[in-house]
């Protein structure tokens, strides 16, 4: 997902001053991860929750002080609370994300696995994520999609950082096994950390 990087502060300041072009740039950089996270926790209601989230964020924008990861985290917290306020968070498992897991679930042959890897796009990855228990799926979404650190996630979900780290790791292992169709336990310990580090560096 695109990031503004060093330009974030300038774009944020302009948006806070009411510059719609700057806001559009800020939105383009931060809406997709927000929307993906919301799809994980509320499914079909993600668009509605995102709208309400942005409405609240727009009001708080002039007084927001922080960097880009903080901003993404802030949006996610608002979104999570909006989902909870709307009673959608309780629904947890989104129907549409459960609708079509076959392309990744039933892959068993190596060739098919390779094809699945090649075909894996964001949509399919979200469906794959939806095969996890909801709480695990949310942790992975906050870690991978939003890019929060385990300690930050721990504060949001009310668990400790170690538990978050372990849960995310195991969830990724599960997803990898599902995707590859491997029945054996595989060692992806290094890979999960490398992948996340590479993503958020």
């Amino acid at each position, binding site marked *: *997902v*695109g990031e503004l990087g060093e330009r974030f*502060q300038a774009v944020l300041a302009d*948006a806070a001053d009411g510059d*719609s072009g700057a*806001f559009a740039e800020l*939105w*383009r950089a931060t*809406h*997709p991860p927000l*929307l*993906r996270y919301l799809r994980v926790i509320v499914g079909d209601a993600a668009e509605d929750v995102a*709208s309400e989230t942005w*409405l*609240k964020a727009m*009001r*708080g924008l002039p*007084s*927001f*002080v*922080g*960097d880009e*990861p*903080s901003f993404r*985290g*802030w949006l996610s917290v*608002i979104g999570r*609370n*909006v989902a909870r306020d709307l009673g959608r968070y309780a629904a947890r498992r989104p129907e549409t994300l459960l609708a079509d897991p076959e392309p990744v679930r039933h892959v068993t042959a190596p060739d098919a696995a390779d094809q699945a*890897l090649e075909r*894996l796009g*964001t949509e399919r*990855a979200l469906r794959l994520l939806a095969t996890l228990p909801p709480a695990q799926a949310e942790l*992975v979404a906050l870690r991978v999609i939003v*890019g929060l650190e385990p*300690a*930050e996630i721990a*504060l949001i979900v009310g668990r400790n950082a170690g538990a978050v*780290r*372990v849960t995310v790791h*195991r969830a*990724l*292992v599960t997803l*990898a*096994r599902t*995707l*590859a169709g491997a029945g*054996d*336990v*595989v*060692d*992806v*310990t*290094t*890979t999960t*950390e490398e*992948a*996340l580090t590479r*993503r*958020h560096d």
Partner: protein
Amino acid sequence: MTDPTHHSTPAPDDDAVRQIVDALTAPATPEELADEPRYVTMFTALAAPPPAPSRRRLRGRFVLAGAAAALAVTGTAAAVTGMIGRTTTPSERPPTTSAPPPKTSVPPASRVSSTPPSVHSSADPAGTPTPMGRPTTSPPAAPVPSATPGGSATSPSTPSRSLQPSPSPTPTPSSEKHPPVSALRASCGAYLEGELEEDGKKYRELVEAAGGADHVREYCEALVVSRSHS
């Protein structure tokens, strides 16, 4: 991180994890960005200044203010002359206006009502609805995390980002009375861990800083998250 429950089979699935992470963090799709015009419109509407009051409304406010002033003057004069609540006839009027006021006939509150609250609040533009139909003074649902720009986001425990606390995103009438942010953050930590009594002073301070009891949790989450990014 190592997990003792997982060893062994070297990994064709390394690629699987990378693929999953890459897919989840892939560039935005056109569908995800399709609503940009709608959001920009929403932003523009919210960013626009509230409409200026019309001349008729202004005139109405002047009339209200004038009436209030007249009432205040009348009330004060009546209080001075002790004529409140009585039917005055020429024969009942005191012979001079220099008569001393009665000591107990008028409650103190009646004597100094120079600016009735209702008039004051009706002329206050703070309650003017925004184009989105919400009052401009309504607080944001979530507080604003406050970290100085330019810090690293890689580790919450790295003290490379300093905080410039701003716990209250919008000024509130009571915002000047808030305790220091460090105290609020400590209270938030206790609150999030379920260790803050909800009938205590610290909780009341959080409620005030967050703009309402309904916002305390999100306020604290954001405040603590902003701290962890410092």
